[in-house]
């Protein structure tokens, strides 16, 4: 896998960061993982839908800030960053144009960053 690392395209940390994120999403999407969750609690199987419920209190810091964004921003961040859907898939799921997904995602990230840096 290290062969796919291109130093021209970014830092090693960013590369590893994205591998970790993709691996986590793959695992969360895998049948095995969902089955293990299903064995515990049937109602937890909601991976296909954006989470619009109120944030549970034990969420990591970043997730909490995401939940503080307005709904349309929260949705695109949740679907893309945390659940790994592509922008095209999100456009289909949310029934909005791809351009709107892009605009919202970029705006959401800028706002998120502003909140984090406060």
């Amino acid at each position, binding site marked *: 896998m290290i062969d796919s690392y291109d130093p021209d*395209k*970014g*830092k090693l*940390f*960013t590369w590893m*960061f*994205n591998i970790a*994120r*993709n691996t986590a999403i793959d695992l969360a999407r895998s049948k095995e993982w969902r089955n293990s969750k299903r064995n515990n609690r049937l109602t937890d199987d909601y991976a296909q839908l954006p989470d619009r419920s109120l944030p549970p209190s034990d969420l*990591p*810091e*970043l997730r909490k800030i995401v939940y503080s964004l307005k709904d349309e921003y929260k949705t695109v961040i949740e679907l*893309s*960053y945390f659940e790994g859907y*592509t*922008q*095209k898939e999100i456009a289909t799921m949310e029934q909005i144009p791809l351009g709107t997904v*892009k605009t919202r*995602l*970029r*705006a*959401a*990230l*800028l706002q998120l*960053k502003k909140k*984090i840096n406060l």
Partner: protein
Amino acid sequence: MDIKAYIESGVIESYVLGIADAEEAAELQRLSLEYPAIAAAIKEREQWLREFSEATGRPAPDGVKDQLLQSLNKEFAVTPGSIHFINRRFKFIAAASLLALLVSAAGNVYLYKRYTKATDDFIALQKEQVQVLADNQAYQARLTAFDHDLKIMSEPGVIKVLLAGVTGKEGSLATVYWNTHSRDVYLMANNLPPVPSGKQYQLWALVDGKPIDAGIISDCASFLCHLKQVTGAQAFAITLEKTGGSATPTLDQMFVIGNVKS
């Protein structure tokens, strides 16, 4: 293009977080090569991501690192500790397999040597066969030529004239076969010294005391050469002349001469 607006649009953030789509990523990579400001902005975002991750990230649960290293060890190293689990039966099978492998390897070497030798032999035989075929063809050609010469020599009206070496050229010998019916002259150069460069032997017929050109002699050592037609010759002689022949013979360069027996 408004670089500042592009940098501040949020596209770099989405790229660094891995949620930009392929087109956006490609465009950004292309632009970062063109505009140092964009490349710097990417670096700055990456640094920010790292700092933020280290400041807020949750530490991995205890044991994850050990687990990871263990699974990596399994992947890269043959741990000596695992040999303890191998039982005697397995050891026996492994030893037998190794022995079989060695025997098989030795067999392969032996067979390979035999194979290369057989191949070499085959190539040698092939070369030999080609040589034999070539020789055969050469003999056939010579036989045909001899057959042809023999027919010429044995035709009715053919007179054989032996040309013997003159004084100083003793040992030189040539034979003329003269068909008095068709007037054709054939020559066999039985023994003539090698020709110096720029020179050729020329046959002369002596008719009533006058030398008449009877043809240039090329390579007539093995076969009969068909030369010019001659009428009423009393003798034949061979002189060494310049290449292409002369109109009159150079008498001090005469090698052989012989009279026609009537």
